[in-house]
């Protein structure tokens, strides 16, 4: 019985310890302003495509092209990656969604590499809201949905953004200057159309999730051994 009690204390420690630090997984060392700049993350669409709610994230407009403010992007990206890491640490299911056909393969292979899931194909209406009927009872829904592009092929907001909000699933999303950031939990203003930018995001998410999972294994060994020794 004493062993059982110690195990419980150990598992509490595993879950509460990361919450005491603002950057438990040291994610700020994964990216810098220069990296974002070189990956063309600051480039937005033309002024005519601008979404009203993205004006707060814009640095300005140069020759009719919107430029996103990378200082704000850095803060938002840090928070989004930190949240993703915590979800992965607690063994949450992460789903990557993007309807940008150019990067479907890249995102799917990235999801496979970090042991999570991706849905970059046609989204059926009731996938989240009607899951019990479509997949059978007791299906586990994702604990976090990451959008590498929040628009679908007809430049409307992806259905999953609204459905995740309905199902209380937190969302992280890369929002370009023509997207609506309001329904996302952790919006990240950034370019979602250039190859280098999406490759950078994939690299960052993959490294974050792998880091979080490795940390979890380390913590389990550490606190597992400690509770055994005590």
């Amino acid at each position, binding site marked *: 019985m004493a062993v059982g009690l110690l195990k419980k204390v150990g598992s509490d420690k595993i879950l509460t310890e990361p919450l005491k630090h603002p950057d438990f997984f040291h994610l700020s060392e994964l990216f810098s302003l220069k990296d974002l700049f070189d990956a063309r993350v600051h480039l937005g*669409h033309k002024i005519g495509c601008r979404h009203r709610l993205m004006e707060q994230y814009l*640095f300005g407009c140069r020759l009719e092209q919107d430029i996103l403010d990378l200082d704000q992007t850095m803060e938002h990206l840090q928070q989004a990656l930190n949240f993703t890491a915590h979800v992965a640490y607690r063994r949450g299911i992460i789903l990557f969604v993007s309807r940008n056909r150019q990067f479907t393969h890249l995102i799917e292979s990235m999801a496979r590499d970090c042991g999570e899931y991706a849905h970059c194909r046609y989204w059926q209406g009731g996938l989240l809201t009607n899951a019990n009927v479509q997949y059978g009872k007791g299906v586990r829904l994702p604990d976090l949905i990451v959008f590498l592009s929040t628009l679908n092929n007809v430049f409307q907001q992806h259905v999953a953004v609204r459905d995740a909000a309905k199902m209380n699933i937190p969302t992280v999303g890369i929002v370009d200057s023509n997207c609506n950031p309001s329904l996302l939990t952790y919006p990240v203003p950034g370019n979602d159309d250039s190859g280098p930018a999406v490759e950078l995001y994939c690299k960052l998410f993959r490294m974050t999730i792998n880091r979080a999972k490795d940390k979890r294994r380390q913590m389990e060994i550490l606190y597992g051994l400690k509770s055994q020794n005590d």
Partner: protein
Amino acid sequence: MSALCKAVCVSKRAAELARIPCRSLLGFTKHYSSGETGETPGNEEGTPPAEKRLGGFAAAFELHSDLQQKHDIAAATVGKTASSKKKQSFAYLLKHSPLVQMGTAKDKVAVGKIFHIVNDDLYIDFGGKFHCVCKRPAVDGEKYQRGSRVRLRLVDLELTSRFLGAKTDTTLLEADAVLLGLLESKPK
């Protein structure tokens, strides 16, 4: 020799007076005056301080060349990490980026790289937000393969247009450019 030196000195004085930064001229002066012993004004070798009284531009040039030399030595010895440690703000990076320095995209020549080919369509990335798609030219057609660098004349960075009754512009998610040809490699 001295006559040539005089001619060079005169032209340098003229440049000084006209305040034209003609570095090549001053470099020329330096090369010739190193042989002389304090005859020319603005000699950068070790002339006694009492003798030389450098004019405004010459003094500034000397100061700049010293700083440049120090910076080069520092950069060479310490390596890339030193220069990258100096935090450049986003505004600085943006202002000095090629995209902003270029100005309007219309009729600017850029170098792009082909990253995808579909039969006769070449998808070329030139560093902007979007890529451009060009037809394979009739001349040297088989030389255009994935990874080849090409010269482009840009027309537009993003093809957008506002249609009647629409709230926002419709974008094609593509840039527009005219293919000029392959990038000729410089003979070594």
